[in-house]
């Protein structure tokens, strides 16, 4: 499944909207493997950063550079959005959708759909409209829909925000397994416990800029900036 690790670089990345700069300038390089957690207070620009890396938001200036050709890079990635986007279809069709786009054979699609609906505990909901699922169920479905393509790079924007404790642990196991198997994961979370459990390295954002980038060990034991310290103590409001 994984051919070779993909890495990405941001060069002087800036996003401007209506004259104000919401992100950047950012220079950042994420190497080929590992589990990167992006931390930062609300409105720091975490979502914007992930979307830029993935390519759904365009930069106002600067560049994103993947280590493989753009087309290949895009095909190898999947993204779970902060607000789950549900197709107005059944749960089954939501799961099947990414595979249908890739023209998978029907039998293979059916098999994977069964497998993944089981893993998120929605096997009984396959024929229900996805838009009618509960908040947590939608989040799990979005996650399964991203994983069903077996991506090499996975972006997760607060994937456990609406999940109960047990589901959160299940998902974490799943993610750690995927990461170990070579999937590059870039994820945001507000749950610092979760960040500690999962991160191999951390990017700390503040006001649209990278304030700190370090291995998880370094970050959680010895933050270099005052802001990161304050954040971990719950003192930063903006």
């Amino acid at each position: 499944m994984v051919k070779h690790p993909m890495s990405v670089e941001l060069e002087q990345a800036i996003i401007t909207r209506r004259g104000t700069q919401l992100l950047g300038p950012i220079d950042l390089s994420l190497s080929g493997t590992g589990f990167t957690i992006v931390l930062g207070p609300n409105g720091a620009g975490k979502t914007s950063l992930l979307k830029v890396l993935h390519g759904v938001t365009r930069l106002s200036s600067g560049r994103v550079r993947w280590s493989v050709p753009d087309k290949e890079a895009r095909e190898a990635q999947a993204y779970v959005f902060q607000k789950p986007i549900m197709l107005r279809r059944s749960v089954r069709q939501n799961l099947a959708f990414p595979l249908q786009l890739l023209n998978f054979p029907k039998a293979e699609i059916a098999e994977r759909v069964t497998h993944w609906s089981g893993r998120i505990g929605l096997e009984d909901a396959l024929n229900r409209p996805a838009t009618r699922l509960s908040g947590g169920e939608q989040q799990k479905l979005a996650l399964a829909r991203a994983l069903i393509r077996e991506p090499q790079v996975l972006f997760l924007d607060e994937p456990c925000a609406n999940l109960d404790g047990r589901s959160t642990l299940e998902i974490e196991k799943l993610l750690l397994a995927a990461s170990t198997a070579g999937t590059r994961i870039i994820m945001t979370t507000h749950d610092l416990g979760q960040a500690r459990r999962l991160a191999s390295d951390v990017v700390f954002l503040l006001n649209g800029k990278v304030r700190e980038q370090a291995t998880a060990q370094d970050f959680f034991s010895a933050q270099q900036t005052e802001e990161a310290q304050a954040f971990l103590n719950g003192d930063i409001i903006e």
Partner: protein
Amino acid sequence: MNEIWAGIQAAFRLIVTLDPDLVQITLRSLQVSLSALVIASAIALPLGTWLAIRRFRFRRLTIATLNALMGLPPVVVGLIVYLLLSRSGPFGVLGLLFTPTAMIIAQVIIITPLIASITHQAMRELWAEYHDLLISLNTTKRQRIWTLIRDGRRTLLTAALAGFGRAIGEVGAIMIVGGNIDNATRVLTTAIALETGKGDFTLALGLGFVLIALALLVNFAIHALSRTEREGRW
């Protein structure tokens, strides 16, 4: 007021006796309008959707133009189609003038901008909702358009029905390119215009009510079908 009442009675009589002339022109009305609807939808639904998802330089201009084309005067469309299909026009050799095909062509031109505009408007919201997901999944343009049309099909119903309504009630263009020839190109609207010209308001109204009944029937049928398809909102 008496005339209106007499018209309703005339409509009843026409329908109950299944007047063969009436049946013929009613079926022709349906045939022409539904054909035009199918062709126009095949053009306008993808076009409107495409306009909703594409950002290009003159997008706003294009959309304003499309909206303006909803105001294409049928008589002018009729004239232009006439000139094109006339024996001395560029497509004269096809011999299409004064045939139902010519009428369908004219109606397609008239209703395509209407359907495309409504489609565009309906699809903008759905696109805003789906945008990030469809971009993220690396879809092709074609896949995006198809996904939006499929999942927005209920809202597109109004677009199609508006097109059908415009087509079935239209008279100016099809009068010119169809010629209102008895037994060949006469449809309900041209027959109504004819009877109005004769001052036979009772018959004109009668035919008019038949036409309205037809429109109601088609709408109920389509609503019933789209309802059985699946209950509830998605």
